């Protein structure tokens, strides 16, 4: 891992000479000892006396009305304490994802409905004395269905005779009105083009595959207050929607998330079991835990949107893009979840990355009777930049321009309008491409692959680029909050509502606080994950935790520093602005006088300590991070297998807070990206909607032996004034650029352009055979 730092130049990014003492160092993470020792408590680890075990009965039909549910046998089973069906739960239409009233998600779900819309939808829930009894009870529930016609593809869902999956007042099965973006004059642009390319790109259906299956535990106290331990990225959103649907005030719902075993976006949604667990606990008067099986994480989880993209671009001979026209159709599955947000973010992403003044873009999401597509790392941009960056490679070849050079010529630059309608800050993309070209010695590498003799195994190098926003603005106006409290021994407590998915964000926030105040990292303790204690936060998603939550923490810490200096000033007989805090010692600048921070804040004889608390609130607009990925692959022309030999990801993060954690995000994103590009696809039986591979044996994720060496390079080329010390997001970026890099490398190796993912060995082999036939 390499970090290239260069002085910041913008006023609000501190002065260029600033020496960092905590930020930029890979301190030991605050959550890591509990993780490596097994002492950390995940939501499924909470021990509650009298615990009952909840289980959900799921439909084995994709689209049907429930005519009757007979639960009498289940209720009669010894050890069963409660059974709930649609007749027993509040019928309140709610948002599928708990961003209340946000334009990013739909309001089309009930806790349980009298109708099922996909194979695997929950129809009833049981609470019993043991997991085994609960499972047995599920088998005793008899559901009588009246089948409805079902559609499993977007094409079928759009046919005139297709059943209406939701009656939302829109054209046939549209989740929301189409996302339309038009700028300039595309017709004129195409008329000016020397080369026009038009292709269709087909996108598979990967799943997040987080290691911790969804789980929650619920307990009501004697005063009618609910405590829920849940594996969620959005504790406050869960609180809000649970309170509203259950009909209790917000202060009677307490959501606790301590450690969490990954989410990758999908655990932003509120799932059926979270409502049902609360209701079962209320009905039985006992705590209840509901935990998904691995299979249920597929059936009842959230997938990335599959779909098709038709992309047409015009190019001048010098590589200038004259027009871009795209039609994006995504499969939303049976409920809308994040479809509006994913479609909007993915579609608008095509206004940028590579400059183009004339764009005509339209994105749609369509309901089908398949598992729900939701938020998943990359949020629509994985899909649209896959199409865009594959076509760039094709254009480069047709124009006789090096593919990296074509990208450089068109790369988004400072001041350009970003997809969010803001001016882009800095030349981050250009910096990433140039650094990567040097690192891999691109010209020599490509010359070597071009010159390789014919053989069974053929190598290729490819490039892929991306930019991604930190924060969901303008879809959601977000907010991060932090409270920083100075304790009377000079230590500090940070209270943050940000969620800890496993990224190390709480450590980064603690580093920011230590840096801002001028105390050692070890002097900061971070308190997280309890909605009764920490300030409100919108949740961990949109690559914004360090950017937004970190900035809020920085603002709160700056206020604490201000108050501390105010206390110290009379003791040091100097004006507060003449004072600086370093390593917990307050110095008078330019004079040989100092006092320890502890001495300033500790109680004096007969006197209480000063109450020093800083509150930070931050509502960001948006910043963009950039990346260029370079991948080398080897294609076995006898088996069709594609091995990724090495990846060189170059990312611009503005300012890196914790290098190891940032690199870990990048390397993990690449793992997931290699997965969806080469092997991962959640397959639905197109005759009945049944899931065909809901397990880790049949759904193929890259494992230790599949992962290539990754040479991670982090740049601080374009710090953003909106982030703490210039820092921007990193979570989603790495999963976007790797797919195009690999696919373009495959072309370099064997001369076949695949325009879909995943690219399986079978398809590679078939394509090679077809090419051979053609040549013969």
């Amino acid at each position, binding site marked *: 891992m390499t970090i290239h730092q260069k002085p910041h130049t913008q006023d609000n990014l501190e002065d260029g000479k600033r020496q960092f003492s905590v930020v930029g160092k*890979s301190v*030991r*993470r605050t*959550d*890591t*000892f*509990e*993780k*490596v*020792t*097994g*002492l*950390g*408590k*995940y939501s*499924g*680890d909470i*021990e509650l006396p009298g615990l009952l075990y909840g289980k959900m009965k799921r439909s084995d039909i994709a689209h049907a009305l429930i005519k009757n549910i007979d639960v009498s046998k289940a209720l009669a089973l010894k050890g069963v304490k409660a059974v709930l069906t649609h007749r027993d739960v509040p019928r309140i239409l709610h948002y599928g994802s708990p961003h209340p009233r946000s334009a990013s998600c739909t309001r089309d779900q009930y806790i349980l409905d009298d109708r099922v819309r996909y194979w695997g939808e929950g129809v009833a829930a049981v609470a019993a004395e*043991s*997991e*085994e009894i609960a499972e047995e009870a599920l088998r005793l529930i008899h559901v009588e269905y009246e089948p409805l016609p079902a559609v499993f593809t977007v094409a079928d869902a759009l046919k005139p005779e297709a059943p209406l999956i939701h009656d939302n007042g829109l054209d046939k099965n549209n989740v929301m009105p189409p996302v339309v973006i038009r700028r300039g004059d595309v017709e004129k642009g195409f008329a000016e083009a020397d080369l026009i390319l038009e292709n269709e790109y087909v996108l598979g259906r990967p799943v*997040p*595959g*987080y*290691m*911790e*299956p969804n789980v929650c535990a619920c307990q009501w106290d004697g005063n009618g207050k609910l405590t829920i331990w849940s594996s969620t990225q959005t504790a406050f959103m869960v609180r809000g929607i649970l309170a509203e649907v259950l009909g209790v005030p917000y202060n009677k719902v307490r959501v606790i998330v301590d*450690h*969490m*075993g*990954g989410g*990758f976006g999908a655990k932003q949604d509120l799932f059926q079991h979270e409502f049902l667990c609360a209701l079962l606990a209320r009905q039985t008067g006992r705590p209840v835990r509901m*935990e998904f*099986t*691995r299979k249920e994480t597929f059936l009842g989880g959230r997938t990335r949107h599959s779909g098709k993209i038709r992309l047409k671009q015009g190019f001048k001979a010098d590589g200038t893009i004259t027009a871009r026209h795209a039609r994006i159709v995504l499969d939303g599955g049976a409920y809308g979840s994040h479809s509006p947000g994913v479609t909007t973010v993915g579609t608008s992403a095509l206004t940028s990355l590579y400059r183009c003044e004339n764009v005509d873009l339209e994105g749609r999401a369509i309901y089908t009777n398949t598992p729900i597509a939701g938020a998943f790392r990359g949020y629509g941009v994985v899909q649209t930049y896959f199409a865009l960056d594959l076509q760039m490679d094709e254009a480069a070849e047709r124009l006789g321009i090096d593919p990296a050079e074509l990208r450089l010529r068109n790369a988004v630059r400072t001041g350009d309008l970003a997809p969010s309608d803001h001016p882009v800050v800095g030349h981050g993309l250009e910096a990433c491409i140039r650094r990567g070209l040097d690192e891999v010695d691109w010209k020599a590498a490509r010359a070597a692959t071009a010159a390789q003799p014919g053989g069974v195994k053929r190598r290729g190098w490819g490039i892929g680029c991306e930019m991604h926003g930190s924060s969901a603005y303008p879809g959601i106006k977000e907010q991060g909050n932090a409270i920083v409290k100075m304790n009377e021994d000079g230590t500090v407590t940070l209270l943050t509502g940000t969620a800890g*998915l*496993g*990224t*190390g964000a709480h450590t980064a926030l603690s580093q920011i606080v230590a840096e801002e105040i001028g105390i050692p990292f070890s002097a900061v303790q971070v308190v997280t994950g309890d909605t009764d204690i920490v300030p409100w936060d919108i949740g961990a998603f949109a690559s914004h935790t360090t950017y937004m939550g970190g900035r809020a923490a920085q603002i709160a810490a700056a206020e604490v520093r201000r108050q501390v200096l105010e206390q110290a000033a009379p003791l040091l007989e100097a004006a507060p602005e003449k004072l600086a805090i370093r390593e917990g010692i307050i110095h008078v600048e330019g004079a040989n006088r100092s006092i320890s921070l502890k001495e300033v804040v500790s109680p004096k004889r007969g006197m209480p300590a000063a109450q020093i608390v800083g509150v930070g609130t931050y509502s960001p607009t948006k910043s963009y991070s950039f990346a260029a990925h370079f991948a080398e692959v080897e294609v076995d022309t006898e088996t069709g297998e594609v091995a990724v030999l090495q990846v060189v990801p170059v990312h611009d993060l503005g300012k890196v807070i914790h290098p*190891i*954690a940032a*690199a*870990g995000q990048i*390397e*993990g*994103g*690449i*793992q*997931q990206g290699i997965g969806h590009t080469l092997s991962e696809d959640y397959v639905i039986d197109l005759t009945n909607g049944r899931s065909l591979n809901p*397990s*880790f*044996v049949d759904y193929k*994720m890259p*494992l*230790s*032996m599949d*992962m290539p*060496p*990754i040479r991670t390079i982090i740049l601080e080329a374009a710090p953003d004034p909106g982030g703490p010390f210039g820092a921007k997001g990193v979570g989603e970026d790495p999963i976007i650029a790797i797919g195009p890099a690999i696919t373009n490398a495959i072309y370099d190796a064997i001369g076949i352009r695949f325009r879909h993912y995943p690219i399986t060995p079978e398809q590679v082999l078939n394509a090679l055979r077809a090419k051979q036939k053609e040549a013969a």
Partner: protein
Amino acid sequence: MKRLVSMTVNGEEIELAIPPYRTLLDVLRNEGRLTGTKKGCDVGDCGACTVIMDGSPVNSCLVLGIEAEGATIETIEGQHAGPDLPHLIQEKFMDHGGAQCGFCTPGIIMMTKALLKENPNPTESEVRFAIAGNICRCTGYAKIVDAVLAAAEDLRKGRTL
């Protein structure tokens, strides 16, 4: 009908009354109150529940609790010496960023311990082979492999498992 089973877990002999159909994983987590061992799939696909049983790594979801009668079991909770006193492998996972969400971590650490006991000087590909049955979805494995190799290096310098 519950059955009494005795086993030695992390050096302590315990006796538990368990249903005969319950897996060792569920027994450890429920009756044993040792929730550090994780359930990622419950069918032997992911390795999150790896423990060391009589010296060999096993997926504890594929072993019945009653099969552990008389066995010696090592779990993640038994590895560190106390607060702030991590086991060598744990220390390396912390320092190298080998744990992100942490859900696969206990299983991978136990698998690493089994590997290093057998082969204190593994190559990178031997490390990757050893943890091939342990799914991690966060790290891309790079920092996990770094951590294991660093632990092996310290073993060669005289530290012990």
